[in-house]
C-alpha cells in the first residue's frame, strides 16, 4: 500500500504530469497539517496574452525563432510559480495588470514599444531602490521589510526570465550560438568578425 502522496504522484504521471511539485507539496501540507511556505501563483488567459506579447517584444521572431516559438511564456509562469515568492508574484502581477489597464494589447507595435521603453526607463529607478532595500536587509535585521515590500520590478523579472527561457531553450540555442556540448579541448583562440558565442 502506498501513501496518498505516492498515489497522487502516480495519477499525475498517468495524466501526463498535470500536478507540479508545489501542488503535490501543498497536498502534503494539507495532509500533515503542517505549515509550509507554499506560494501559489497562476495567470489568467488575459494576463498570459500580455506576458507572451511582452516576451515576444524582448526576443522577437526574426529570421530565427522568437520567445513564443521557444516556449518562453509558459516558462515564465512556471518559474514564477516554482522559484519566486510572494513579493515577486505581487510585483509581476501588478506589472501585467498595469499593462492590461493601459490597453497594451490594443496598441499598435510602435505604441507597445513606446510603453515598454518607458517601463524600462522607470524600472531603473525602481531597481536602485530595490537594491538599497536588499542591502539594508542583508544584515539580517529585518526580513519583513523585504517580504512586505514589492519584490523585483515586473520589467526586470520578465526580461530576465525571457532571456533565461530563450537562450537556454533548444530553439534559442540553435538560433543563437555554436552549441558545443562536448568541446574535447580548451584553447585560446581569436574571435572572427561576426562569430557567435560558443555555448557548452
Amino acid at each position: 500500500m502506498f501513501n496518498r502522496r505516492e498515489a497522487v504522484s502516480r495519477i499525475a504521471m498517468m495524466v501526463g504530469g498535470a500536478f507540479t511539485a508545489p501542488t503535490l507539496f501543498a497536498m502534503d501540507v494539507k495532509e500533515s497539517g503542517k505549515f509550509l511556505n507554499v506560494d501559489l501563483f497562476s495567470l489568467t488567459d488575459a494576463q498570459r496574452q500580455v506576458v507572451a506579447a511582452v516576451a515576444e517584444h524582448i526576443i522577437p521572431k526574426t529570421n530565427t525563432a522568437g520567445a513564443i516559438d521557444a516556449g518562453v511564456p509558459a516558462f515564465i509562469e512556471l518559474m514564477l510559480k516554482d522559484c519566486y515568492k510572494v513579493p515577486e508574484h505581487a510585483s509581476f502581477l501588478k506589472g501585467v495588470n498595469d499593462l492590461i489597464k493601459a490597453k497594451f494589447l490594443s496598441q499598435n507595435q510602435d505604441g507597445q514599444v513606446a510603453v515598454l521603453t518607458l517601463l524600462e526607463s522607470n524600472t531603473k529607478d525602481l531597481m536602485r531602490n530595490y537594491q538599497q532595500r536588499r542591502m539594508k536587509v542583508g544584515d539580517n535585521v529585518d526580513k519583513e521589510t523585504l517580504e512586505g515590500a514589492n519584490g523585483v520590478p515586473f520589467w526586470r523579472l520578465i526580461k530576465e526570465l525571457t532571456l533565461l527561457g530563450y537562450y537556454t531553450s533548444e530553439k534559442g540555442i540553435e538560433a543563437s550560438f555554436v552549441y558545443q556540448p562536448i568541446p574535447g579541448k580548451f584553447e585560446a583562440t581569436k574571435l572572427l568578425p561576426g562569430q557567435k558565442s560558443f555555448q557548452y
Partner: protein
Amino acid sequence: MNINIDAIKGQTFDAIVVGSGISGGWAAKELTEKGLKVAVIERGREIKHIEGYETAMKHPWEFEHRGRPTNMAAEEYWAGMRTGYTPNEEHRYLFENDKQNPYIEKKGGFDWTRAYHTGGKSLLWGRHSYRWNKQDFEANAKDGIGTDWPIRYEDMAPWYSYVEKFAGISGQAEGLDVLPDGEFQPAMAITAPEMHFKNEVSKKLGRPVTLGRVAHLTNPEKVHTDLGRSSCNYRNKCMRGCPYGAYFSSLSATLPAAMRTKRLTMVHNSIVSEIIYDEASQKAKGVRVIDQNTMEVREYFAKIIFVNAGAIGSTSILMNSKSSRYQNGLGNDSDQLGRNIMDHHLGVGASATVEGFMDDYMFGNRPNSLYIPRFRNWGNDKRDYIRGFGYQGGASRDGWGRGTGMDGFGATFKESLTQPGQWNVGFGGFGEILPDPNNRFQLSKTVKDKWGLPVLEFETSFGSNELKMREDMMHDAAEMLEAAGFKNINAYNKSDTHIGLGIHEMGTARMGTSVKNSIVNKHNQVHEVKNVFMTDGAAMASASCVNPSLTYMAMTARAADFAVSELKKKNL
C-alpha cells in the same frame, strides 16, 4: 542463545573502511592492494560510475527550471542555499537534503554540506590539488598555536608523489617553495587576458600566477586508462558526475582499483553508529551500523578500522562510541574530540572588467582557474595577522546573461546577445583558519535524527586573525587587478559567511604528539586504540590555505602502508 555463525563469519573482514569519499576510497584501494579483505561501509545509497550520473549529459533545456533551485528545494536544502550552487537542479541529486538531515547551529553559523552516496564528496569536489609546503607543517610550533604536527613535509613528500601519479593532477611546475611542485599531467591553457594579468602581476608586484593544479587527466597514462579513465573534455559540468572518468573520484579511480583485487566488499545504506570497543584487548573489534532504509542494526568485525566518514562524520562516530573506558567518546582522553573545526574562509576578493582583447576568445569550457599562491607572511613579508591565503579566479567573456542589465529589447538586442561580450575577471581568496578549541561541535543531548542518532550542535565563529586577514584578501585582489590595468574594480568582503562555506571542514580529531593533546598520532592512529585510523579532514592539526583533499589522499595512503606493516608485525 541462537547464533547464526555463518552470518557472523560473513561479516568479518581484515579491515573496515567507514565511508567511500576521497579518503575512504584511498583506504580501500591501498588496503585491498596490500592483500587485505576490506568492507567499505557507506551510509548513503549506491551510485554507479557513469550510469549513475543521471544529469551528466543533459542539455540546458532538459532542466525544468534551467538549473535554478525551486522554492521547495530552497527550503529543504537550506544550508546548501548558503553556498549558492549546491541545490542547483543540475547536481542537487548528489547533495543531501538538510531538512531530512538536520543539524543545530548553537552559536554562530556553520555551513555543513553532506553527500551521502558512493564516492561522497569526491564526486563534487573542486578538484584543486596542492601540496602543503614545509612551513605549513611547522607553523603551529612556530606560532605556538594548537599542537605541533608530529610529521613534516619530508614525511609526506613521497606519498604526495604516490597519490598524484595515480590520481592524475594537471598543473605547471613553478619551482616555488610556497607551493611545492608535484607529478603533473600537462597544464591547461590560459586565455589572452589571463596571460596579460600573469605577466603584469609578476612584473609589478613580484607575485607568481600559475594554472590551477587540478585532478583532471589531460594526457592519461596506462595507470589511468586501465581503469577506464580518459582525458578531460572541457565541458565543466564536473559536479554532475563525469562519464569520462576524467577527474579523480572514488568512483572513477580508487574503488575500481580496489574492486579489481576481488578483495573489496561494498556495503551501502549502512550508517555506522559506533565503533565497538573491546576492553580486554584495548582495541576496536568492529562497527555497529543502522540500515538507513530498514533500520536494521548489524555488526561488522575487522582487525583494523579506517574511519573516513568526512571530518565531522568521522568524529561524530567516535563521540557516539562510548564505553566504560571512553565515556566521552572513543580515544578522547584529551577532550579534543569535536574541537578546532577549521575550513578555508572565502567570500572575499575582487572582480573587474577588462578593456580590450576584443578579438581574443577561447574554445572549450575550462574546469579550472588560475591560482595565485600565498604571498603574505611569506619571505620578508610580515603582517598584523599570521598565516596567509591564496586566490583562485580567471577571465571570461560575458554571455547572454549580460542582457538583463542592459538597456533595450527587440531584434537588434536579441542579435547582440548571440556574440560574446566584454571580458571580465575575478579572483576569490581562500584563507587559512586557525585551530580554535572553542570552534567545536557536540552531540545533542536531546535531539535525535530519524535513525535515533544524536543530532550535532555546532558552535563556530571566525576569530580576529581571520577577520584581519580578510582585509588583505580584499585589498590585495583589487591591487592585482589594478596592476593589470583592469577597470571598474569591485572589491568585496562578505560579512555573512560562516565556517564551512569552503566545504573544507577539517579538524575535530587532530593529529598531535601525545594522547594528552590530540586524538591521533603521527600515523593517524588513535593514540590508545591502535587499530583505529582517522585519515580524513578530522586529523588535521592546522589548515594551510591550500585545498586539502590531496593531503588527505597522501595521508591515507601513508597510514594504510603503516597499518598493514603493523598488522604483519602482529602489532594490531
